[in-house]
């Protein structure tokens, strides 16, 4: 085992102190002199034609500085994927969901802005509302977007191998349906932003985002500004989980308002607006047909999926691909066919959320595999082990598992949970269930077609050599990338953790595609590692020239220069350093040459000492249409065992125990890894047991609060036995790969399988409320 000084330790997060004391600043905590406050006018109707908009009364209200509608903001289309740019900043002809944005006001305070919004008069002509995606795709119904006559926003048809032929060889085939409910990201910090367009023509947008790079591009495009004139920066972000991974209306509206008024403009979502803006987990209807041999080997899978997309595309094109592609692993599966359809409806747009399009497909399939195992008389865990892919295997849809500790994960949870003692032996009302999953370590391709680097990093040494500034555009949204990248920089150079200062989440600091698809540890990590090694090499080369010692005979460790052979006399160097820094508090001491003295020598020779790093994935295989969604340089994987108690009188489910093993390649910081695993599991518990956005028949969200839309509290979560598996990923920095999303994959099906074990009831509709389970148990009794 290689020894590391910094990585692979449980160092506290770099931002933990500021966040523990209340010093950390999030967007809504910031303000600027002369700042205006913005507010939005949103549609009260789910589908209507806009006949007229009258902003004159709003404009006359004292304190109002600007009112804008589509007329002022223009009609440049944007969205997430260029193939489906279907949004404009404000609605022009039509509104498509309750909450669709029609106008924005900037005023001297929020109260005035809100009052002005109430003075805008809009005349609507109501249109038929489509809330059900199956209705929406029928012939002859109204089109929500004129360009999509039967409301099919995207469809995917893929076949790998030959499923129909393969079914002929199968001993057992079964079909099941499964449906979840629309989920909300429910991050605790609502989106907020401040835009300021200065007199030099530079726009600075400070915003609560996961992806400064994509927001920069979208804002530049929609506002018609050169991209170099747009700077997007994020302070601390209070969680994102997907919905903050693309530009939103307030970012665009505040930018336009600032350009027009010449003043900074702040806009912040209310909690209800967070629910309306949504861009979170879709509702999926899966129909899965799986064929196996008697011995349990998986032969073929046919997967049909319909998705409720809501009013706009958002990430939906990727989602509809992921709904199929993410069943390609972790089992050896030679034949797979997928038909996916994403429909427009008059609801808030759905997008990406932790685990993206794979979570519900995974839940459906892992439950079905459990049924199959039972039918074949096999232990479900052993059946999974039997089919498990190994390191080096490639899926039928061309994903290469360059590392894959799945067997180790399964064995770890089997032994860690006491599976063998418990499975099939628990009393009625108690159950145990298992499931597996995997996820990408970063999307292999950017959202827009481009040869761009996915991550760049720059490391600049301070003039005194004592501080190492790391510049990255990667976004820490709570998952801890600032900490991970700081640790990586320190390790690569050979300095101490506290010597590195990270500056991140700013388009001025470089290019980074941001915090989505679990990409930053691997991708930003590669760039940082490279930049760190570059700095290290530069410093050592200068020393080598000065001391006439070959670079190979030196090393840097814990901020000290290690001379492997004879230590040179550096007394002159040291006394010069001390003289130059007379009166400073931290003169270099001790018997070893310090990194800062060495860096000072490098500074004298070069003036600027900068290390550079950049990363993009190599050729990832997959030449078929849609291969860009799911191919990744590496895949993380996990397995879970969940134990539940079901109250047989009421159907209430309590999660007693969770054992989770995740293969993250290599743990840069085990504490952070466990945090990602535990957080993923709690989001999975929420989706499995109670999260559901409900609509009335007019398309209104009826539970747009964190009281009525229930997420897990401290009382709902058990302690999780988290087991980290390290498989040393060849494509990852130091062998590291994802953990942020993969860990959610097995949670829902493991819970469902445990509920079955406890009750004998298969639940194929989420969430498993006590009412739903109770009804199913009653039906079962009647049979």
């Amino acid at each position, binding site marked *: 085992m290689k020894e590391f000084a910094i990585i692979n330790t*449980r160092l*506290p*997060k770099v*931002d*933990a*102190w*500021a*966040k*523990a*004391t*209340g*010093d*950390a*600043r*999030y967007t*809504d*905590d910031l303000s600027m002199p002369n700042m205006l406050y913005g507010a939005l006018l949103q549609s009260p109707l789910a589908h209507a034609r806009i006949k007229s908009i009258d902003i004159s009364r709003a404009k006359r209200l004292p304190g109002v500085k600007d009112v804008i509608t589509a007329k002022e903001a223009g009609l440049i289309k944007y969205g997430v994927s260029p193939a489906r740019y279907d949004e404009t900043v404000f609605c022009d002809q039509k509104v498509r969901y309750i909450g669709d944005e029609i106008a924005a006001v900037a005023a001297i305070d929020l109260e005035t802005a809100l009052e002005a919004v109430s003075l805008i008069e809009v005349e609507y002509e109501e249109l038929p509302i489509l809330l059900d995606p199956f209705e929406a795709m029928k012939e002859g119904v109204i089109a929500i977007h004129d360009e999509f006559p039967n409301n099919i926003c995207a469809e995917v048809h893929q076949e790998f191998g030959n499923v129909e032929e393969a079914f002929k060889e199968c001993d057992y085939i079964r079909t099941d349906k499964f449906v979840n409910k629309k989920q909300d*990201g*429910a*991050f*605790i*910090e*609502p989106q907020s932003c401040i835009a300021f367009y200065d007199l030099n023509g530079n726009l600075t947008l400070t915003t609560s985002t996961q992806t400064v790079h994509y927001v920069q591009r979208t804002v530049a495009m929609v506002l018609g500004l050169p991209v170099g004139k747009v700077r997007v920066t994020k302070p*601390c*972000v*209070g*969680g994102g*989980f997907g919905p903050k991974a693309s530009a939103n209306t307030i970012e665009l509206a505040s930018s336009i308002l600032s350009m027009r008024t010449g003043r900074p403009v702040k806009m912040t979502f*209310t*909690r209800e607006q967070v629910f309306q803006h949504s861009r979170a987990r879709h509702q999926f209807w899966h129909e899965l047909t799986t064929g196996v041999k008697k011995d349990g080997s998986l032969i073929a899978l046919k997967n049909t999926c319909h998705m409720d997309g809501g009013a706009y595309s958002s990430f939906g094109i990727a989602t509809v691909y992921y709904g199929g592609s993410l069943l390609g692993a972790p089992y050896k599966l030679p034949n797979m066919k997928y038909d996916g359809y994403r429909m427009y409806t008059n609801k808030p747009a759905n997008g990406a959320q932790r685990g993206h399009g794979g979570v519900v497909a995974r839940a459906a399939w892992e439950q079905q595999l459990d049924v199959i195992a039972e039918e074949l008389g096999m232990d479900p865990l052993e059946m999974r082990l039997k089919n498990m892919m190994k390191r080096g295997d490639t899926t039928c849809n061309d994903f290469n598992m360059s590392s894959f500790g799945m067997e180790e994960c399964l064995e770890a949870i089997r032994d860690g949970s006491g599976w063998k003692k418990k499975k099939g032996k628990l009393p009625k009302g108690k159950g145990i269930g298992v499931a597996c999953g995997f996820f990408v370590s970063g999307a292999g391709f950017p959202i827009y077609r481009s040869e761009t680097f996915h991550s760049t990093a720059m490391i600049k040494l301070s003039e005194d050599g004592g501080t190492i500034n790391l510049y990255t555009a990667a976004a820490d*949204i*709570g*998952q*801890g990338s600032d900490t991970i990248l700081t640790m990586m920089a320190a390790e690569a150079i050979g300095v101490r953790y506290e010597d590195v200062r990270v500056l991140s989440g700013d388009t001025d600091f470089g290019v980074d595609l941001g915090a989505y698809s679990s990409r930053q540890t691997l991708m930003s990590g590669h760039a940082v590692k490279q930049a760190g090694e570059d700095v290290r090499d530069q410093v050592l080369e200068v020393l080598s020239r000065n001391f006439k010692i070959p670079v190979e005979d030196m090393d840097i460790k814990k901020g000290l220069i290690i001379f492997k052979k004879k230590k040179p006399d550096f007394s002159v160097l040291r006394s010069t350093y001390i003289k130059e820094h007379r009166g400073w508090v931290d003169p270099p001491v001790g018997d070893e040459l310090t990194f800062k003295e060495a860096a000072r020598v490098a500074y004298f020779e070069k003036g600027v000492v900068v290390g550079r790093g950049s990363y993009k994935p190599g050729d990832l295989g997959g030449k078929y249409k849609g291969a860009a969604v799911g191919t990744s340089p590496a895949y993380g994987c996990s397995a879970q065992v969940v134990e539940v108690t079901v109250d047989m009188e009421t159907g209430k489910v309590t999660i007693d125990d969770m054992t989770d093993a995740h293969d993250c390649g290599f743990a840069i910081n085990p*504490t*952070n890894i*466990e*945090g990602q695993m*535990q*957080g*993923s*599991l*709690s*989001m999975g518990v929420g989706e499995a047991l109670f999260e559901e956005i409900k609509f009335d028949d007019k398309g209104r969200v009826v539970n747009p*609060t*964190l*009281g009525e839309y229930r*997420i*897990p*509290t*401290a*009382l709902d*979560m058990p*302690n*999780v036995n988290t087991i980290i598996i390290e498989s040393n990923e060849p494509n990852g920095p130091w062998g590291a790969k994802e953990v942020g999303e993969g860990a959610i994959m097995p949670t829902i099906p493991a819970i469902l399988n445990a509920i079955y074990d406890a009750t004998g009831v298969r639940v194929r509709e989420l969430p498993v409320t006590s009412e739903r389970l109770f009804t199913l148990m009653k039906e079962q009794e009647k049979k």
Partner: protein
Amino acid sequence: MKRIITLNVNEKEYEVAVAPNRTLAQVLREDLNLLGTKIGCDMGDCGACTVILDDRPVNSCLVLAVQANERKITTIEGVADGPHLHPVQQAFVEHGAIQCGFCSPGMILSAKSLLEKNSKPTEYEIREALSGNLCRCTGYQKIVEAVKAASQTMKK
């Protein structure tokens, strides 16, 4: 009509003129610039705005500023002793209990308030005391571990 009130925040007296409809959370953030108090919902659902009001944790978005007149308030800014973190804060830092940190000020205040009343809480008591503070990032486990650890150090 604005009313002049006196707030005792973190052992300092502040005189502020407030409109009757302003919440304590707003006044703390906007008038006193104590921005560590967060607003996640503004409806009493999430606990991000938790402060301690006369020894009791409350959602400051549900308290009108005028109701806090002449009462004692502790916000997150008043928890550390200068540069020395409170044991609860220290434990949150060390145990990885903070991810995005948006819930942390409220969590820390709820935990501190619990430990002041009950120095040896059981795990259930900890979870119950924190159940009004939502966290979407951590799954609560490391938060609970931190509170347990803090109760140990505080006893010493």
